[in-house]
């Protein structure tokens, strides 16, 4: 994630080419009457998979709706690959959005749904038909595509929404809880689709409340609480910035007791737990750099270290540290 404190409105007004590959929020606030949606959000989202994580009402959907012009900011400015959110003709050639709303225009089949909205791009019947089938095929919904959407299961509805969002081959894919209602197999296929999208240098911006999937899928995370962005960046980077929480490291070695005694001689190690199997230990330290330097010395002193793994370098832990005390996810 790119640091953004200095992003100014003037800079957005005359975007240099790099900004045409970024999604930029510049001091954006949105209030619903007196209720806060999001407040003073300044973000720059690069290509790749970015997960928005936060409890109910934290502002995830508002952020996505702001990004796609479904709601307007009370203050601040948003640019999506250089396009303003009040310029639909430009914006929606770049963006596809699969919303959380589980509703569809009445009476349409899956194919008609994807095809009809593709026609709004002004392309020919043949072109739209081909694109619609391609997108439907991509989400494995060819067989039921001729049936009415009203008869689809929750998972099928999610997939047809996804097909509609990707049908015009957007550069930015915005997805609100896209994995909800999908069975494990389809979930894996869908995640593969997101990865494929991101691998092409495109943006996949999704909200989710399934934290272990955040680790698995995301290149970046944006943690939200009460309408504020509380952390952003790569998961490991975000973790290292949480200085008040000791970093946890799992070590598998041949002499865990000897190692415990060595590390306790330093002032930055605050807790050590020996594994019950006698083959390792969990260490909590306030200074990761000093700890890893110490670990080098320990290894040289004859303790055979099998593996060293960060134990809380994941979205779940970060979430717990930053938000967990206040609220829980959905």
């Amino acid at each position, binding site marked *: 994630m790119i640091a953004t404190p200095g992003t100014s409105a003037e800079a957005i007004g005359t975007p240099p080419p790099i900004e045409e590959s970024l999604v930029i929020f510049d001091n954006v606030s949105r209030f619903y009457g007196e209720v806060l949606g999001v407040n003073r959000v300044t973000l720059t989202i690069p290509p790749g998979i970015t997960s928005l994580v936060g409890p109910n009402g934290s502002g995830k959907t508002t952020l996505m709706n702001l990004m796609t012009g479904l709601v307007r900011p009370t203050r601040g400015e948003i640019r999506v690959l250089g396009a303003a959110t009040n310029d639909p*003709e430009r914006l929606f050639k770049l963006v596809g959005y699969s*919303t959380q709303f589980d509703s569809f225009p009445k009476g349409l089949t899956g194919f008609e749904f994807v095809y009809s909205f593709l026609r709004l791009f002004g392309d020919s019947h043949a072109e739209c038909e081909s694109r619609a089938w391609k997108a439907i095929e991509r989400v494995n919904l060819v067989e039921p595509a001729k049936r009415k959407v009203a008869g689809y299961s929750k998972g099928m509805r999610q997939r047809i929404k996804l097909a509609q969002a990707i049908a015009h081959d957007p550069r930015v894919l915005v997805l609100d809880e896209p994995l909800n209602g999908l069975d494990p197999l389809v979930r894996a296929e869908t995640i593969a689709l997101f990865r494929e999208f991101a691998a092409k240098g495109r943006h996949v911006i999704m909200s989710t409340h399934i934290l272990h999937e955040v680790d698995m899928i995301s290149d970046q995370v944006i943690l939200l609480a009460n309408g504020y962005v509380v952390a952003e960046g790569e998961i490991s980077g975000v973790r290292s910035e949480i200085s008040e929480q000791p970093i946890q490291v799992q070590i598998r070695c041949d002499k865990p007791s000897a190692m415990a005694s060595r590390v306790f001689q330093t002032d930055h190690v605050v807790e050590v737990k020996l594994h019950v199997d006698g083959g390792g230990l969990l260490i909590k330290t306030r200074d990761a750099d000093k700890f890893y330097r110490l670990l080098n010395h320990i290894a040289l002193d004859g303790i055979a270290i099998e593996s060293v793994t960060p134990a809380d370098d994941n979205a779940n832990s970060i979430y717990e540290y930053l938000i967990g005390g206040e609220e829980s996810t959905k």
Partner: protein
Amino acid sequence: MNWALWWAQIRAIIRLEMRKTFFAKRGIWIYLLALAPAVLFFADSIAVMHDRDRRAESESTHAVSAKTLDSIEMGTTRGQVEAKLGEPYAKEVFSFGRRGQNEHAVYRYTDGQSDYVFIFQDDELVGRRVNELRTISKDSLVFATVFQFFFLRLAIFFGCVGIFTNLFRGELLDKSLHFYLLAPVRREVLLVGKYLAGLIATVVIFTTSTALQLMAMGWHLTGPAMTEYLHGPGLGQIGAYLGVTALACLGYGSVFLAAGLLFRNPIIPAAVVLLWESANPFLPAALKKISVIFYLQSMCPVVARPNDMPALAALLLSSAEATPAIWAVSGLIVLTLAVLAVAARQARKLEINYSSD
């Protein structure tokens, strides 16, 4: 200005909306509302034809000349009437009073064209009514009254409420409007597309109904009478009624499309517009022109007579001043464009916040 793209988008919106508007179950009441007067006119025509046949039959068995029938004076007894006119083709006698001492009788005669109804009270002629056979001029007046009172004021009005308010409000309630707002379509183009879709639907439904009503109205006419009508004012009247129907959809459509964007509950603005349109006769000249009905009634080829109607119904008929058709059409188009401009402004500000809708 990318007119080609906008036109392609408008056509795509119309196609999508048509499927929803024409085949929606919730729109069935609009078809019923539109077809109701046509059904009534058909029923009336069948009754008129039946009546004509009956009179013709009565004429052959109870032929009495109009002159003889007109010569009967008030106070004449039943016996004197029967002596002069013969047996009536229909006779009803009722007794009433405590012991049945009072008698009431109705005698019906015909000269083949008109029905003469003589009413006797205690063997004395106290009333006489002549029911003439229906003529096209009488039918035209009935049609004008039904068209202006029921069809314009209620059927097209509420049909447009049902179709046009739902173009945006209905989709907000169904939580499906965002699909349009997530397409590369300007809000103004979306508005025009939806408006034209609603207009096509209402014009097709209501002009078909008007045509059916006119056809039903003339169903009972004999060949010569129909030829005379069509060679006289008929074609002009038919064209005018179809035109007024289409213009009503144009005007009311814009009003209710805007209402669907501006208000959460379209029934409230519909009631306000209905009141405003009903108050039209009592408004100052300048305010009268800010109304759809003012222009529509100016263009109706036959003036409905409020005096012949119940007071409450007459209240709904605006006494439109004679406004040249060109001004009426122009005025209605200007009004429509002004309302659509307000709607477009609102559409630009539209946000998706289904929970509050």
